[in-house]
C-alpha cells in the first residue's frame, strides 16, 4: 500500500538517475470509483512547480523515489486539467462529507494502490491510524502493537472516492462518475443532519449549489432552533424563495423566530399568496392546532361531480401538502363534510360529491392544544384533521407529519410520565431528569443568598431560611400537577378500579421517593449553609412531607375531576395554580408547626 503522506517530499529521479525535484502533489481524474492517478506535481530547484503526465513519464514509484521514464530534456510538462483533483491541495487535511457514514470527517491520509502499472486512489483515511501515521509512523506501529497485545485492533477507516463530497472544491465542474454520491442527492433528512454540523460559511457554500426547493426541504428537516438561524444567513432573495417553497406552517414557524425587520423584509419579497398565508398563521399561538396547521386545504362544494374534483386536484391543488382528504364546504367556507381520495377513486365519475360525503366529522379548534390534536389523530387513525373556528369555518388542517413531530416533542416528556405503570421509580427519574438544571440553578442561588444573608445580617431566623425552599416546593407542585394532568389526558375515557389502584400505588411510591429525595437535597443544602442540625432537620422534614402530601393529592385528582363525559371539571392552568398555592401554604404551615416544636 502507498500512502500520500509517505510520498510527499520524496525525490523525483529522471531516466539517467538525476534528481530533478521532490514530489509535491499528485492528481487524479474523477471518473471512476477508484480513480487513476493521472499527473505528478513536483517542485524543482528554487521551488519551481512542475507537472507531468503520470501515464507518459512515470516509470515506477518504489516507496522511496519516483523514477521517470525519460531524461530531463525530453520531459513535456503539462498543466492541471479541469477534471483533475489534486490529492494534497484539495483533499489532504481537508474536511469532507462522508456521504455513506453521513458525517463530516477530516482526511488524515490518502491510500493508493498499484495494480498493473497503474496507481489508483483507494480512498481517504479518516481514522486514528491515519492521524497517528501523520504524527509519526513509529507512533502508528506502537499503538497498533499495543492494541494487539490488548486483543483489539485499530482498523483503518477508509472512505472511497464515490462517497466523498468535497466541501472546499466544487466538483460540479468536474465530470463525475454516475456512482458519485453528492450531498444534495441524499434524503433531505440525512442532508440536514450533515449540514447542521457545518459552519455557517460552509453551509452557505453548499446551499449555493442547491435550488430553492431542495434548500426548503433540507431546512424543514433541520432542528427547530437552527432553522431560523440558517434562513437568516441566506441571501434575502434565496431566503424568500425558500420560504415560498416550504409548507406554509413550516415557513410560519421560521418567520416567527426571525427578528422583526428581517421577517418583514422576507415576507415582502415573497409571493403575495404565500406571504398572506404565513401572516395568517403567525396570528396563532405556538403549540396549538393553529400553530401547526397548514392553510393549504383542498376544498370543493357539495354539488361538484367526482370527475370535476379529480380534475381540480390534478390542476389547481397538486402542490398542496396533503390531498388525501378533500373538504366539502358551503357558503363562507363553512365545513360540511369530507371525502377521501379513496372515495373519489372508487366512485363513478358522474357521482355528485353530496352522495359520497361523510358528514360525521372530527374537528379541532385553532386554539386547541397541539398534544390533544395529535392524540385525537392517533386515536381515530386519521391522516389529517380539519381545523374549524367558532363560526364553523374551515381555517386549515393539521397533517399527520406535523402531528408526529408533536408526539416526538411531547410524548418523550408527557406520555412517558402518563404511562408511569412501571413501579421502578421511573417517574421519579423522569421528574428529576426534567427539572435538574432548574434545581441546580436554584440550589446555587440558595447557597449564595444564604451566604450573603449571613455576611450582612448574621444568622437568619428559621422562617427566613425557609423562604429559600419556596421555589423548590412551587416547582415540585407544578411537576406533580402536570404528572396528574398527563394522567387525565391519558385516561380521558375513564379507568377501572384495578387500574386506578395500581396507578395510585405507583404514584404514592414515586411521591414518597421524591419526598425523601427533596428532603435529602434540602438537608444537604442546609448543612452547606452551616445551619444547625435541628433547623436542617425541621426544614427538610417540612419539604419532604409537603411533597408527599402533594403527590397524594395529585394521585387522587384525575378520578375526582373527570366527568362521565370524559371532559374535566377544571382547566390545566387552574389545577397547576391551585397545586402550587396549596403546596406553598402547606409548606409554610408545616414549617411554623415545626418551628414551634423545636423552639427556634
Amino acid at each position, binding site marked *: 500500500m502507498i500512502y500520500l503522506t509517505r510520498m510527499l517530499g520524496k525525490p523525483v529521479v529522471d531516466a539517467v538517475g538525476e534528481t530533478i525535484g521532490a514530489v509535491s502533489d499528485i492528481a487524479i481524474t474523477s471518473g471512476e470509483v477508484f480513480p487513476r492517478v493521472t499527473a505528478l506535481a513536483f517542485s524543482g530547484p528554487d521551488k519551481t512547480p512542475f507537472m507531468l503526465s503520470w501515464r507518459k513519464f512515470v516509470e515506477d514509484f518504489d516507496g522511496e523515489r519516483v523514477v521517470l521514464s525519460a531524461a530531463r530534456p525530453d520531459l513535456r510538462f503539462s498543466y492541471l486539467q479541469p477534471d483533475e483533483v489534486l490529492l494534497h491541495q484539495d483533499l489532504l487535511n481537508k474536511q469532507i462529507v462522508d456521504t455513506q457514514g453521513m458525517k463530516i470527517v477530516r482526511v488524515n491520509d490518502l491510500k493508493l494502490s498499484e495494480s498493473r502499472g497503474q496507481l489508483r486512489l483507494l480512498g481517504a483515511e479518516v481514522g486514528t491510524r491515519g492521524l497517528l501515521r501523520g504524527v509519526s509512523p513509529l507512533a502508528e506501529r506502537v499503538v497498533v502493537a499495543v492494541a494487539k497485545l490488548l486483543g483489539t485492533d485499530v482498523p483503518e477507516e477508509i472512505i472511497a472516492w464515490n462517497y466523498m463530497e468535497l466541501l472546499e472544491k466544487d466538483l460540479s465542474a468536474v465530470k463525475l462518475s454516475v456512482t458519485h454520491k453528492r450531498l444534495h442527492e441524499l434524503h433531505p433528512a440525512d442532508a440536514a443532519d450533515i449540514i447542521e454540523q457545518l459552519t455557517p*460559511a460552509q453551509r452557505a457554500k453548499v446551499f449555493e449549489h442547491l435550488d430553492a426547493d431542495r434548500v426548503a426541504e433540507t431546512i424543514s428537516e433541520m432542528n427547530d432552533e437552527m432553522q431560523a438561524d440558517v434562513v437568516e444567513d441566506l441571501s434575502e432573495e434565496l431566503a424568500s424563495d425558500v420560504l415560498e417553497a416550504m409548507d406554509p406552517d413550516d415557513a410560519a414557524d421560521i418567520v416567527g423566530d426571525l427578528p422583526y425587520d428581517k421577517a418583514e423584509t422576507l415576507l415582502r419579497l415573497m409571493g403575495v399568496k404565500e406571504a398572506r398565508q404565513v401572516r395568517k398563521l403567525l396570528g396563532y399561538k405556538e403549540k396549538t392546532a393553529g400553530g401547526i396547521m397548514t392553510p393549504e386545504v383542498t376544498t370543493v362544494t357539495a354539488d361538484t361531480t367526482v370527475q370535476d374534483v379529480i380534475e381540480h386536484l390534478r390542476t389547481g391543488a397538486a402542490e398542496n401538502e396533503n390531498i388525501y382528504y378533500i373538504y366539502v364546504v358551503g357558503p363562507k367556507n363553512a365545513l360540511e363534510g369530507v371525502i377521501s381520495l379513496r372515495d373519489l377513486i372508487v366512485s363513478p365519475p358522474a357521482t355528485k360529491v353530496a352522495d359520497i360525503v361523510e358528514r360525521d366529522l372530527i374537528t379541532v379548534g385553532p386554539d386547541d392544544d397541539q398534544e390533544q390534536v395529535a392524540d385525537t389523530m392517533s386515536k381515530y387513525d386519521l391522516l389529517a384533521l380539519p381545523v374549524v373556528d367558532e363560526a364553523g369555518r374551515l381555517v386549515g388542517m393539521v397533517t399527520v407529519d406535523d402531528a408526529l413531530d408533536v408526539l416526538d416533542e411531547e410524548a418523550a416528556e408527557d406520555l412517558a410520565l402518563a404511562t408511569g405503570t412501571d413501579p421502578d421509580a421511573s417517574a421519579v427519574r423522569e421528574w428529576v431528569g426534567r427539572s435538574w438544571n432548574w434545581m441546580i440553578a436554584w440550589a446555587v442561588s440558595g447557597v449564595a443568598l444564604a451566604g450573603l444573608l449571613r455576611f450582612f445580617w448574621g444568622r437568619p431566623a428559621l422562617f427566613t431560611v425557609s423562604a429559600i425552599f419556596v421555589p423548590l416546593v412551587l416547582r415540585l407542585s407544578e411537576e406533580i400537577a402536570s404528572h396528574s394532568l398527563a394522567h387525565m389526558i391519558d385516561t380521558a375515557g375513564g379507568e377501572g378500579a384495578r387500574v386506578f389502584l395500581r396507578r395510585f400505588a405507583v404514584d404514592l411510591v414515586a411521591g414518597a421517593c421524591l419526598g425523601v429525595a427533596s428532603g435529602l437535597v434540602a438537608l444537604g443544602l442546609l448543612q*452547606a449553609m452551616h445551619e444547625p442540625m435541628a433547623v436542617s432537620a425541621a426544614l427538610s422534614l417540612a419539604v419532604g412531607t409537603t411533597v408527599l402530601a402533594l403527590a397524594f393529592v395529585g394521585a387522587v385528582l384525575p378520578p375526582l375531576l373527570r366527568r362521565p363525559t370524559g371532559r374535566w371539571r377544571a382547566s390545566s392552568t387552574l389545577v397547576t395554580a391551585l397545586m402550587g398555592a396549596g403546596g406553598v401554604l402547606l409548606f409554610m404551615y408545616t414549617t411554623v408547626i415545626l418551628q414551634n416544636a423545636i423552639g427556634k
Partner: protein
Amino acid sequence: VENTTEKTPKRTVRVRLALFFAVVGPGIITAMVDNDAGGVTTYSIAGASFGYSLIWALIPITIALIVVQEMASRLGVYTGKGLADLIREKWGIRVTFYLMIALLVVNFANTLAEFAGWAASLELFGISRYVSVPIGAFVVWIMVARGNYKVVEKLFLIASTIYITYILSGWMAGPDWGQALKEIVVPPVAGQPTAYWITLVGVIGTTIAPWMQFYQQSSIVEKGIKPREYKLAAIDTIIGCIAAVIVATFITVACAATLHKAGINIQFAEQAAKALEPLAGRYASIFFAIGLANASLFAASILPLSTAYTVAEGFGWESGVSKTRKQAPEFHGIYTGMIVVAAAIILIPGVPLIPVIFGSQVMNGVLMPITAYFALQLVNDRKLIGDAVNSKRYNVLAWACVGFGGLGSAIMVTSMLFPSLLG
C-alpha cells in the same frame, strides 16, 4: 389587501443598534474572560506590590491585545474556519498534533486555576470548597452541555456585566487619582527592582492568552459573521479589549490604594479581597470577592469547551454539544474530563493553589507567541483571505506586538524557572 406603500428601510438608530448586537458578543466575551482567576491575581499583585507604577503598561498591552484578537477575528470572518482548522490545513498533522497537545495542557492548567479561584472566593463567604467546587463544576458542565450557542452567549454577556463589581470595588478603595494619573503619564520606571519587571511581564502574559485567539475565532465562525459585517466585529473586539483593560486597571487601583499603601503583600486574589475589608470597607471586599467568583466560574465554563472544540477541529473528530457521547466521544471526553479532573484536583486536601495559578500563567506565556506566530502567518496568506491580509504598516505593528509579547514571555518564564538568573 397587501401593503402597497413600500417603505425604504431607513437606518434608524434602533436598526443600527440591532445590527451591532447581532454581531457583538465574541469580542466582548473573550476579552472579559481574560480577567479570570489568574488575571485578577496578577493585577492584584501588581497593585499591591508596586502601587500605581505599573498601570501605564496597560496601555501598550491594550494595543497588543487588540491587534492579536483583531487578527483572529478577521481570520474567522474571512475564512469561516477556526484557527485550529486553518493551522491543520496549512501545516498538516504533525504541527497540529503538537500544538493541540500543548494547548490541552495549558488550558487544563488554566481551568485548574479557575476552580482554585472559585473555591477561594466562595470560602470568603463561608462556603466550603467541598460544596462549592462540585456545584460549580456541575453548573459549568450542564450550562454548556445543555444550552445552545445563543442562550450561552446571552448568559455570558450577562456575566460580563458583573465585572462592574471590580470598578465599584476600586472606587470604594478611595484611590488617589492624581497620583495614579501622574504615574500613567510619566511612568516611574527609573530605578525599579527586578521584581517590578517580572511583574510587568506577568501582566503581559496573563492579558494576551493563547486560548483567547482560538476561542474568539471559533465563536465568530459559529456566529456566522460575514465580511460585510466585519467592521462591527472589529468594534466588538476593540470595545471588549478596552473594557477588559479598564476592569484590570480598577483591580490594580483598588489594591494600590489600599494594600500597597498599608504595605501588605499578597500572593492570590482571594487574599486581596480579604485584605480589602479593614482598609476599604466591607462592601469593597464583597464586590471584589463576587467579581473573582464570577470571573472564575465564567472562565471555567469557557476554557474546557473551547479546548474541546479546538482539539476536535484540529483532529477532525466530531464535535458539538448537541452530539451524544457515542457520536462524539473525544469531544465529550475532553470537555467533561477537563472539568472533572480539574475539580477533583482542587478538592485534594492541602493542594497548594498558588503554584497552580502561577504555573498556568507561565504556560500561557510560553504558548502565546507561538500561536500568535501562526495567526500572523495565516493573516498574511493572500490565497486564504485575499485582500483582507495585513497591510505593510499593520504588519510592522503586529510583529512588534508578537515580539513584545514573546520577549515578555521569555523573560517571565526564564525568571520563574531560574529565579537566580535575574537576581
